[in-house]
Structures are given as C-alpha cells and as structure tokens.
C-alpha cells in the first residue's frame, strides 16, 4: 500500500523534475548472452546463465488481496503490479540481483554522444503470448498510448524528460529511435517496467476510448496477451488467479531450452500477513516474501520443509521528519510556535543525536535490519557515501545542542526535567504513524521514550495511512511524522522527488515553487547536476555531497532499514531473494520444482 502510493507519487513529480545536460555513460551495449535460436531459426531467444532446471509443476504464492487489474495502463496498486510483472516484459530490464541494466526485448541499445538519442534494436522473431509477432509498431503504439493524456497512464510522467515527452521513431522493422529533450542520467533505466503492449488487441479499444475497460481480471483468455513468462489461465473471484506458461516466451536457459520451467503460477489472495504465514507454514504456498522480522523468526524456529533467507537490508528507509512547511493563513498559532523549534537546525540535530537507532534495529526488527544515517541504505552498494558519519546515540550531545539553541530544562513535579524553549514554553509535540504498520508504531514508541530523556513530551497518533498521507502532503496539518519509503531502484534518480524541493515526496515541505532554504537550493543543484554528469564517479561525488548536506541539516532523521526476509520450500530450484522488488519472483522464469517433488494439484 505504502509503496504503491509512493511510487505513483514519485513518478508524478518527474513532470516537474527538470533534468539537464549530456550523459554518455554507456555508448554501446550488445546483448550479454548470444542468442540461441530454437525451432524457428530467426527467433532470437535470450539465453540466461544459471542452474538448469526441469520443466513442469506449479508454484503457489500468496498475494495480499486481489489485484485490481491486469492492465499496465491503469495499474497503480502493488498487487496488480506484481502480477503484471510476470505477464509483461520491457525493452531494457534492471537485473534485480546485480542492480544493473540488461537487454530484454531490445537486444542492444546505443546512446548518441549528446545523450539525447537512444537507439534500440528489437530482438527478432519474438511473439506475444497469443502467438502474434512483436513488431516495432507495437513499441510505437505502446509509447503513443502511454503518452496520450487522455489515457492517464501512470507511466506518462516518467516519459516526460525536460518538460517534453520522449519522441519515438521507427528506423526500420527492428530499430527504434527515442529522442529526449534533455539528457537524462542513466536514461535506459526509464525503460525498465514499461510493458510493451499488443497493438493488435488494443488498437480498437484505444480508438474507441475504452482502454480502461480491458484486461480486467475476468477478461476472456484470447482478449489479452503479453510478453512475460506467464499468461492468464483462470481467475476465481476472491480466491485465486492462475497463470500458465507462455509457450512463446523469449528467454531460454543456457542449454537452449525455452523458459519458463513452471507450467503454472498461482496467486492466492490472502488478506493479511499472519494468514500468509499460516498458509506458508501449512505448505499451501511455496514462497513467502515481505515478511516481518517477528514472523520470520517464528517460521525459522519451525523450519522443516522450507528454508528461510535474510537477503540483507533492502532499500526501504524509515525516518522521522518535522513539519517545515511555510506559513499559510491556515497554519494554527500553535503549529507556528512549534515550527520555530522544528526550523532550528540545532533542534533537529539534537533529536537525531538523541535517537537510539541500535535499539530500533534490535527491538523493531529483532536485529534483522540496519541503522541508517542517510537515505542510501547499506543494501545499496554503489551509492552510499562512505564519508557519512555514523554517530552513536549521545544524550549529552543532544542536550548540548539544545542548550546552544537556547532551550533550557525546568524541574518537573515528578522530578523529571521538562524542556522549555527560549520563550518558556514546554516542548511538546505529536508524531503521526500509520496505524496499519506495527513496525513503525513500535519505532514511534521507542522515539517517544528517547525524546522523553531530552525532556520532550511526545504523543503518538496512529492514523490510517491514507489520511496520514493526506495530512502530510495536502492539508499539512501535522507536527512530526514517522514514515518509510521503499525505493524501487538503487539509482539516485529514484529518490529525486524526495530530495528536490519541488518534489511531491519532499515530505517535510513538498512541492515548493522556490527552495525555502539555501541548503535545499544546494541539494536541488547537486541532484540536477548529477543527472547530467558523464561518469559514475562524477555522479557519485555530487550525490555524496547531497547526502552530506542532508545529514548536516537533518530535515529527515533517518532511523533504520529492515532486511528483506523471504522463505521458500526446499523443493524450489534457482530460488534467490534479492533486495529489489519483486523480492522473490524476480527470476520466476528460472524457478523450477526439483525432481520427484512435483506438487500435487490442489
């Protein structure tokens, strides 16, 4: 829920993100693996390295509720996106294990020297899951639909670079030219997750303006097709969605055998985390992901026919932030008074120094997580700033900072020290948390106790996530909030909307017309410069500086990042969890059921 909201919000702001100047990181990348034609000599299959599996069998996984649609043009919820992820394919794909881009439907791509033009060469002889061939026209059509304002596709904002939509042209039947108005750092990453749609099925509904009505869950089987490893087989309302092997899939294993190995992939609709654990424990599902630490340890204790894996810290970062929005006539006098503290950088630094991150990792994540001091988590190996300090908790330092900022302590009636601001007001504020997220509520309870030791009186207000988001981004009627953001990509560009002062997820003061402070202006400049920098080293240097400014000013007080925890039956071959979404099914085409253990149909 949280994730999907954030991703759509984030893509939303790409409109405003003005990105500039040349980019030349990759000049030419050829297909990583030589294609191995099979059956059809002009079919260019992508051969994947890795353990050879055996064909057949079904895999059952649980989904946190029904997906809303199978149509990538209207899907915004995480569940739909997960299902669409195994039914559709993109031109260029980010390998979830290496975090690098790889050829997919496009077997190679080239960037012009000014960084404005991308030339993609399509794999030839590829077919949709209904047997119709993929042609350059399908790509042209897909981009036309994504960019059509009347369609309201969530992907549209992503494809607007430098204020102008990406222009797509066909050079020949296999070659496509993408023209950007401004260079965009790591531009080929834009293609990840953009499903190429079947023109032969969608053209008519598109002209009739009925695109939103197609590819619902109850769509007839011959009315929908994709390029992913699986295609629709059966949908039972409220219970399950059954997908079957796409016989035309364009990847093979290293022996040339066409993937995927599995015959069927079943999504069971299981509404809550605890029920998912029970289903996995009883063997009804084969794989479980997005586990909380508590349930992970419950499952680990009774491990028998399955193995649990801790993939290490993911990209989710949890943080506390204060309301730093500018004054409006709606700002209450009380909030205005409190914002005087929040705006004082020493106050924020004191809070950061007084927070016990180690305790959060231990008590909230049972040690399965990492304390963080910046938004780049330890799971993101390439982009973290090594120079960033990791100060331990220090109540003395926090008190010293507060003293410097003019705060003082007064002996309370219970013998505890109550913090007073320079005007003599008691320092009291409330922290919002999402009521549906037990981890974050627990975090807030720990913060409450930490801050009590600095003399601050904190109240915790659990709110339903939607109304929390509404308060933070719309009405701006809150004092402080604990939130988490899960980046979907390790590249800094995925956090651009959090960092840019005009970003919609620049949570402490979103969507500013002009940067409210010099340091926000500086971060804006650095982030835009890194987008146009020529090399990884240059980008890294600029991004490091942005992380340092963030750490100095503490608009977000970073707390902790949870590990990605998954489990799978021992009979699943090639299973490997990664820290990027989808944590477990990212290589679903390579998963197989080991010999002699084929699941009995349920």
């Amino acid at each position: 829920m949280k994730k999907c909201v954030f991703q759509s919000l984030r893509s939303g702001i790409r409109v405003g993100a003005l990105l500039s100047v040349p980019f030349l990181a990759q000049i030419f990348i050829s297909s990583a693996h030589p294609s191995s034609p099979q059956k059809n000599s002009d079919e260019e299959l992508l051969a994947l390295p890795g353990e050879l599996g055996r064909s057949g069998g079904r895999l059952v996984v649980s989904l946190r509720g029904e997906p809303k649609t199978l149509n990538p043009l209207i899907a915004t919820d995480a569940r739909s996106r997960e299902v669409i992820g195994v039914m559709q394919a993109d031109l260029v794909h980010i390998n979830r294990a290496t975090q690098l881009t790889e050829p997919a439907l496009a077997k190679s791509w080239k960037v012009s020297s000014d960084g404005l033009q991308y030339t993609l060469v399509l794999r030839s002889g590829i077919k949709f899951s209904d047997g119709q061939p993929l042609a350059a026209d399908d790509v042209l059509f897909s981009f036309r639909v994504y960019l059509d304002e009347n369609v309201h596709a969530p992907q549209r904002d992503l494809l607007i670079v430098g204020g102008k939509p990406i222009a797509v042209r066909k050079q020949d039947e296999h070659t496509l030219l993408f023209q950007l108005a401004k260079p965009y750092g790591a531009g080929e990453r834009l293609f990840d997750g953009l499903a190429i749609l079947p023109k032969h099925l969608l053209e008519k509904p598109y002209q009739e303006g009925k695109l939103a009505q197609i590819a619902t869950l109850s769509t007839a089987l011959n009315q929908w097709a994709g390029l992913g490893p699986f295609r629709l087989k059966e949908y039972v309302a409220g219970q399950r969605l059954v997908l079957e092997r796409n016989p035309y899939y364009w990847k093979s294993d290293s022996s040339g055998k066409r993937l995927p190995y599995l015959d069927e992939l079943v999504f069971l609709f299981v509404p809550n985390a605890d029920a998912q654990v029970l289903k996995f424990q009883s063997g009804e599902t084969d794989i479980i992901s997005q586990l909380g630490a508590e349930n992970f340890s419950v499952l680990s204790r009774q491990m028998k026919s399955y193995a649990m894996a801790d993939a290490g810290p993911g990209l989710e970062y949890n943080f506390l932030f204060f309301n730093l929005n500018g004054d409006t006539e709606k700002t209450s006098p009380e909030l205005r008074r409190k914002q005087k503290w929040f705006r004082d950088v020493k106050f924020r630094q004191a809070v950061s120094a007084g927070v016990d991150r180690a305790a959060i990792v231990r008590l909230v994540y049972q040690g399965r997580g990492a304390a963080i001091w910046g938004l780049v988590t330890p799971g993101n190996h390439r982009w973290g700033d090594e120079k960033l300090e990791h100060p331990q908790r220090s109540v003395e330092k926090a008190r010293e900072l507060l003293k410097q900022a003019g705060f003082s302590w007064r002996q309370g009636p219970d013998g505890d020290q109550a913090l007073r601001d320079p005007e003599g007001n008691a320092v009291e504020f409330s922290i919002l948390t999402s009521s549906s997220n037990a981890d974050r509520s627990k975090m807030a309870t720990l913060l409450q106790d930490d801050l009590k030791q600095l003399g601050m009186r904190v109240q915790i207000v659990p709110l339903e996530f939607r109304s929390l988001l509404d308060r933070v981004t719309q009405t701006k009627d809150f004092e402080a909030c604990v939130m988490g953001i899960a980046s979907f990509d390790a590249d800094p560009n995925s956090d651009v909307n959090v960092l840019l002062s005009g970003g919609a997820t620049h949570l402490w003061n979103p969507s500013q017309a002009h940067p409210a402070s010099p340091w926000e202006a500086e971060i804006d400049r650095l982030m835009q410069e890194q987008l146009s920098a020529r090399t990884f080293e240059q980008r890294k240097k600029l991004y490091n500086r942005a992380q340092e400014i963030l750490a100095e000013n503490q608009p977000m007080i970073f707390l902790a990042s949870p590990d990605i925890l998954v489990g799978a039956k021992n009979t699943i071959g090639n299973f490997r969890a990664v820290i990027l979404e989808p944590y477990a099914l990212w290589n679903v085409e390579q998963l197989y059921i080991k010999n002699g253990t084929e699941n009995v149909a349920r």
Partner: protein
Amino acid sequence: MKPRHAVSRWVTVLVILHGIVACAGFFAPYDPVEQNRNNPYLPPMRLHFVDAQGHFHARPFVYAVKLREDTFDQYEDDSRQPNPVRFFVNGSRYYLLGFLPSRLHLFAGEKNRVCLMGSDGYGRDQFSRFLFGGQISLLAGFMGAGLTLLIGWCIGIIAGYYGGFLDDLLMRVAELFMALPWLYLLFAIRAFLPLSVSPTKAFLLIVGVLGGVGWARPARLVRSVVLSAKERDFVRAARGFGANDLYLMRRHILPETASVIWTQLAILIPQFVMAEMTLSFLGLGVPEPAPSWGNLLSSLQQYSVLVSYWWMYLPALLMVPFFLGYLRFASSLQEHGEPYKMEGGVLRG
C-alpha cells in the same frame, strides 16, 4: 452459608483485589513505562529458595538472565549470579492512591530487575504494567458504571413516578439508545476529535461515551421498581396525608431502588472494564505507553506474539478473579435480595 455471608465474602475478595490495584505503585516493583531495551520479551522469572549448590536461603532470589548470543529473545539463567529479592525498598517515584508521593516498593531485585510476569517487547515489566493498567481499566469501569447509573436512575425515577407522556418519551429514547451500536459510535466520535488526545482526555472520553450510552437498561429497571413502589398502600396513604412529591421520593421510593442499583453496579462495572479493554485492544483507548488492560492484551493480535511468548497471556489470566468476584457478588446479592430484582434483565445486563 447464609446469603449475607456470601455477599460479604465476595465483597472482601473484591476489596482486597482493588486495594492491591489502588496501591499499584507500592506493590509494583517498577515504573510501568520504563523501557529496558536489553531485555525484550523476558520470560517470567522463577523465584528460588535453594541455590545451585543446594543451600537453602530464607530470602527468595532469582537468577540474573543472559541473552544468548545472536538471538533477540532467547535468555538463559546465570546460576552464578543469584539476585536476591529485597523487600520494602526505595525505587521509582509514584503517587500512592493518586496523590501521596512515595518511593517505597514492596519488593525489587537487589542487583537486577525482577520480572515476575516477564517483560513485553520494550522490556517493560509486565507485572507492574498489569497493576498500573488495572488502575486505569478499573477506574474507567467505576466511572462509566457510575455515570450510567446516575443517568439511568434519574431518568428511571422521573419516567416511573410521573408516568404519562414523559414516561412514553423517555422510554422510547431509552429504546433508541439500546439499539445504538456503541462501538461504532465510539469510532465515529474518535474520528471527529483533534489529532493528539492526551491520555487523560482519551480516558475521560471513553468513560463519557460508555457512561452516556449504557443508561437505558438501568433506567428501565429503576422505572419498573418505581412503578410498583408508588402504588403501595403506605405510599398512597402518605400521599393522602398530603406528602409532596419530593418527600415521597426521598422517604419511600428512592430506598426501594437501592438494591437494583447495587446489583446493577456489580454487573455494569466488569462490563465497562471489558468495554475499555476492547477499545484499548483495538487501539482506540488510552494511548501507549500508558498501560491499560486492553493495551496489555493488544500485542496478542500478532500471530508471532501468540505463538512465541506465552506469558503475554498472563494478564488475561489474572483478570479472571476480578471479573469472577464481581459476578459472584452480583449473584449473591440477587440470592438474598427481594423478588422484583429477579425480573429478567438483571443478569442479562
């Protein structure tokens, strides 16, 4: 045993239990909100009298606990480190009965903490939380029941004594209130309130809503008693001698309602305690970190807690004597009471 004795026996039990809760600060060894972050989910400690060498000690002791390496919640006793229990020690500050500041505690560990009922996910002492939580939950029960009976009593007397149109009106309103789903009403009221509600305000709100909604049933009971009382011969006689309404009510009618009120009180208090627990269990009651019985049980909503930490059920077990006490008290009152208290309703609550 004579019914009178049964009543007083249960009253004694209740008085003792409530006395302990009222003096929670003294009986509880620690501050209920104090976190001990190195000891989350500590299992209950066993009191020992005989040490590892087989020597007997008159002073009970517990063993210091050690977290097993690389675990989050696996502890082992360190038999080389006995931790004797000291009695009447000075510890954290509290207010006895809510106003007398004191630091004296019945017992505490000499070196380390003694957690008789284990600790919760923040390392807070469950035993202390249970006792302090009882203060909040039972007070909510008392105040809610008091408010309900006050409203119900007034309305019941007015309706029963004056009768006619007023009676009809009040009784129809009562029926309306009986049909109200109070839980949803509370959800709705909570949604209209300002964001951060201090624990005291949240508490008063709960009491107010619980008390304000539940008055219909006691009002009907009181009304029926009043109806029959005002037709008694001696009441008519008094009226004939010129006694006014106020005199009649004070002298003859109100005393008749006393036993209904007592039984109702005995039934309503545990009901309201339960209602407070329901709300806190759902996260709508007294906010964390303040302990209340519902807050104590709310962690059991999680499957992992349910299967991993059995001592999180202990508060529920310890609540049983309280509820049993009230229900036995109510039924023994009923056994020796007058016939009209048997009119249905009484035990249905």
